[in-house]
């Protein structure tokens, strides 16, 4: 055991551990010859409230805590976790994780030192200090705003959630880092009744922000957005079926980047050769005005992280630079495989899960064209404006996203609202078919959650208005 300096961080006390305990558990995880191991301590406290029919009648709270122990041997992984932070339980998990290796040459653990991390989500107030009586009025206020703005709204359902998460990562190569991660969300779901027909839609806001960020003005915007999105559906039609031009409206259309490009550039898929992008590094894949990044450093962003779930500093990673494919999203294992620095993209849903390369905030920088110019250039097509979900097949490159609402374009003009169509395309082909990009880039603040191998993590996404020459739009045959 090295004679290390005394570690000092409030989370050590929070989890009831010290350097000697960390050393013992890491040594056990390495005991069969693993070349790396790590302990991921996590404590999450979350609160949620929901309002239906004018009553905030449902509240939930939860506490989840535990430690995940990982032993790595090359690209092989042993993993186990324990909800109990008693030494004996942690050692049992470490013994199970160690079985991925079969030797006996245990490396001696390194002295551990605490590494400072930046803070991309400074809050004036922690969620721990906010009482339920402060949260309740926000839901009531939002409901009253909706009711006063639009009489056709029949049902208003409002969901609230906030969480306060403490993470401590200790690794066998001697780093210890801590992160306290806040998250808040407000969802508004509406059903409106008009001429005997009903339509439902909503809006959401979710970021690493404090209660003060839910100002009256912000609530009003969110309510208006939910109402506008719902009411437009009454006039919306299904577009014609088949291939056509698609204009992706600024903001939430970033879901296209997430599905069509982002997942395919997660390095684990490329390391295994299962991504359609596996052989395209440094190739020209899109026009010059296309630059796409994945960023963990956006202030208060839903996808921001001070440090990733493997204890690696986050960064802004350039995926496509002026049309050229430049980089993958790496965790420790893939970075070692490719002989590059990890990009701070190793993420996991909780201490029960193995980290993998994941996106954080994926967005495209603004381009040279104006929105009006883009619309004018389209003879027959649609604008995709609001979305619900998307999916991709990494190998074939086929991806989809579901357009909840948008607009029909005929002869360079917007002619009618549209709704409920799935759009399907192929990643590399779509990139080649990007013909214009707007100067109106922005990040969407909605509640996006990315799923991969059964693990969900919060992300965000953004984009300028973009014209893709040809995508397959679900619709009706005339």
């Amino acid at each position, binding site marked *: 055991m090295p004679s290390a300096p005394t570690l000092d961080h409030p989370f050590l006390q929070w989890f009831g551990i010290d350097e000697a305990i960390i050393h013992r558990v890491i040594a056990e995880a390495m005991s069969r010859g693993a070349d790396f191991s790590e302990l991921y301590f996590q404590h999450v406290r979350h609160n949620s409230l929901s309002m239906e029919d004018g009553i905030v009648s449902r509240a*939930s709270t*939860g506490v*989840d805590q535990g430690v995940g122990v990982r032993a790595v041997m090359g690209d092989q992984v042993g993993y186990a976790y324990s909800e109990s932070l008693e030494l004996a339980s942690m050692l049992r998990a470490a013994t199970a994780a160690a079985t991925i290796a079969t030797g006996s040459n245990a490396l001696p653990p390194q002295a551990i030192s605490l590494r400072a991390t930046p803070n991309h989500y400074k809050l004036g107030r922690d969620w721990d200090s906010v009482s339920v009586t402060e949260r*309740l009025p926000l839901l009531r206020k939002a409901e009253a705003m909706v009711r006063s703005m639009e009489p056709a709204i029949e049902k208003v359902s409002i969901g609230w959630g906030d969480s306060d998460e403490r993470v401590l990562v200790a690794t066998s190569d001697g780093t210890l880092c801590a992160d306290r991660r806040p998250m808040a969300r407000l969802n508004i779901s509406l059903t409106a009744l008009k001429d005997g027909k009903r339509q439902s839609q909503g809006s959401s806001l979710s970021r690493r922000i404090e209660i003060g960020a839910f100002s009256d003005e912000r609530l009003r915007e969110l309510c208006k957005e939910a109402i506008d999105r719902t009411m437009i559906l009454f006039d919306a039609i299904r577009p014609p079926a088949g291939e056509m031009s698609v204009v992706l409206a600024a903001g939430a259309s970033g879901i296209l980047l997430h599905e069509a490009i982002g997942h395919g550039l997660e390095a684990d898929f490329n390391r295994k050769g299962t991504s359609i992008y596996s052989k395209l590094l440094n190739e020209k894949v899109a026009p010059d005005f296309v630059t796409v990044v994945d960023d963990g450093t956006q202030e208060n962003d839903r996808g921001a992280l001070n440090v990733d779930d493997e204890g690696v500093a986050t960064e802004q990673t350039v995926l496509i630079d002026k049309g050229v494919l430049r980089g993958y999203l790496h965790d420790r294992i893939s970075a070692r495989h490719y002989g590059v620095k990890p990009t701070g993209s190793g993420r996991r849903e909780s201490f029960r899960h193995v980290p993998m390369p994941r996106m954080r905030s994926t967005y495209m920088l603004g381009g040279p064209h104006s929105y009006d110019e883009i619309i004018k250039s389209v003879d027959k097509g649609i604008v995709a404006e609001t979305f619900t979900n998307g999916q991709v097949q990494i190998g074939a490159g086929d991806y989809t996203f579901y357009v909840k609402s948008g607009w029909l374009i005929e002869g360079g003009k917007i002619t009618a609202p549209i709704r409920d169509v799935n759009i399907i395309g192929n990643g590399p082909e779509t990139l080649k078919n990007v013909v214009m990009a707007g100067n109106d880039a922005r990040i969407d603040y909605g509640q996006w959650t990315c799923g991969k191998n059964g693990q969900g993590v919060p992300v965000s996404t953004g984009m300028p208005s973009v014209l893709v020459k040809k995508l397959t739009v679900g619709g009706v045959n005339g």
Partner: protein
Amino acid sequence: MVDELLKQAKLALQLALDAGANDAVAGLSDGYSTSFTYRDGKLEEVKQSASRSLGVSLYVDGRYSNHSTTDLRPAELKRFIQDAVELTKHLERDPFRVIPDAKLFANRAQLDLDQVDRKASELNRDRGLEWLREMDAEAHADTRVISASSHLGYGYTASARVTSNGFSGTRESTGVGYGSSITLDEPGGRRPEAGRHVGHCHRDALPEPVTTAKEALRRAVERLGSTKAPSAKAILVIDPEAGSNVVGRLIGAMSAGAIQQKRSFLANKKGERVASELLTLTDDPLIPARQSSRLFDGEGISARVMPLVENGVLRNYYIDTYYGKKLGWDPTTGGTSNIRFGLGTKNQEQLLADAGSGFYVNSWLGGNCDGTTGDFSLGIRGHKIENGKKTGAIGEMNITGNVLELFSNLIAIGNDPYEYSSYGTPTLVFKDVQFSGQ
């Protein structure tokens, strides 16, 4: 293990009542599992899980909340429950929020659901690794394979639940599952992928691991040369493994919560025709040796066989205590168990021959459905049907329509229900479906 969980649940219930709750529900769940992933000739991942958590629901002076924790140390737990009761006092009164009626707990079926098979949960590690090696070898039996990953998981879960008005129940079940996912190289840069995964509470109910890998490879090879067909209005044949995605949209709209919140296209349709008369659906919680079977539901309501749709006519909704009270309806059960279909007489081959031409779908890619209107649009993968047979692979296409319209166009049902899911969906054939492609 269940006795220990029951004891802990009773302690938690007492803590809640002592802290001032008028009524309370406490549930403990526990489980362990082991999983292995084997890829391209070597073991890639070993994972062991063991989890115990507590959930409590509190009814305090007409107010309600629910809470969960994995920190079960006695002092921490006591404080957690006291805080939770305190928090509940600050919420709003809701007259519809009451503990489920104790009458609904009566007459629980006296039946052994046969959900525990120690051959599944206590699999020998070396035997498991041997299976994975065999699956991995079989999955690579084609020179075009870029990467193949085989997975094996097995475990056990148990839970206990008690309520302050007399309900007490325990459950336990085992599970084992395995499968392979395979990516192939195709000229032109595409890397088509496919897989096959099966799971069950009984080890002997599953096909041999190596057969599963062989089927995964067959499916991946079948994806080679996939094209986008022209847009068309045509016949849709859905494979049993893919059917739950459309049937689930219909069943989702049967929830009392969706109806009360005006978000269901099946509201006011009980007793009415909602599908072609070929469709008969039953919620059957009492089928032995099925993972989704149960003797009581999540509220403790004793499980009953419930007709959902009979010859196309909607017979029942899923009604829990809360939304039942709001709607003035008696509770049935809040959620699905096993979905049983009235079956046809033909197998898939015969149904494809009858269809003549159209599209066969065996997996989906994204898409969604609006529960309020029933309007949907879904990405599809599958094959063309030409001259009564499956031919070339298709992809990058969508189907678009409305759930009620789709099910009114159901023209045939197979005799081949899927065995490894709570939805025992057979082959389904629909006419006049809108496909978008080239």
